[in-house]
């Protein structure tokens, strides 16, 4: 049982390049999330999805796009990468539950934009 898998784990981009981070979960969870974490900072919510075909903005959505075409996958896209997007990106998933409940996180994707 893989849980939440993020691809790629490491990537270096040049300013202006585009890329897509893939998050895949095999737990049949309804909800999925993308966070970014900068050194010494907590996690900041970029976008999230409460079901297949739906997405919503989080705290810091600018510069990112997302898609949830299949229930098990949540894609995070950077159309024109900027150095300010250098960060570690975490994907998480969860079933509907009371409270914020238990989110299951991936191992993270470290992105560097030069």
């Amino acid at each position, binding site marked *: 049982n893989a849980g939440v898998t993020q691809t790629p784990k490491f990537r270096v981009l040049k300013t202006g390049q585009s890329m897509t981070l893939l998050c895949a979960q095999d737990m049949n969870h309804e*909800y999925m*999330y993308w*966070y970014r974490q900068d050194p010494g*900072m*907590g*996690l*900041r*919510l970029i976008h*999230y999805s*409460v*079901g297949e075909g739906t997405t*919503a903005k*989080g*705290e810091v959505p600018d510069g990112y796009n997302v898609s949830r075409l299949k229930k098990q996958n949540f894609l995070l896209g950077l159309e024109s990468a900027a150095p300010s997007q250098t960060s570690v990106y*975490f994907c*998480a998933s969860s079933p*509907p*539950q*009371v*409270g*914020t*409940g*238990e*989110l299951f*996180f*991936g*191992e*993270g994707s470290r992105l560097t934009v030069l």
Partner: protein
Amino acid sequence: LAKTTQPISMDSYEGQEVNITCSHNNIATNDYITWYQQFPSQGPRFIIQGYKTKVTNEVASLFIPADRKSSTLSLPRVSLSDTAVYYCLVGDGKRDDKIIFGKGTRLHILP
């Protein structure tokens, strides 16, 4: 969204009990309180969740006073491996509920 406030950092020693308090003055009636732990280079991991009074599991205890405006995560007899960042979250789990982590409390356990 109920905002949470936690100490930025704490130090303790091995074998001690550690209490981390979180303030959430505008918590809503349907909100639960959830705590996560994050080790370096890893995603956060769920520790415990509660609504009122006291909740205990094999890892920690969560104390919530009657007014629910704060909560305390208690870690019994900590070890060096408990060095991590601890996040307090508040939310009701509704579909449109943004799950906000904040900056958390950086706990450093000393030998």
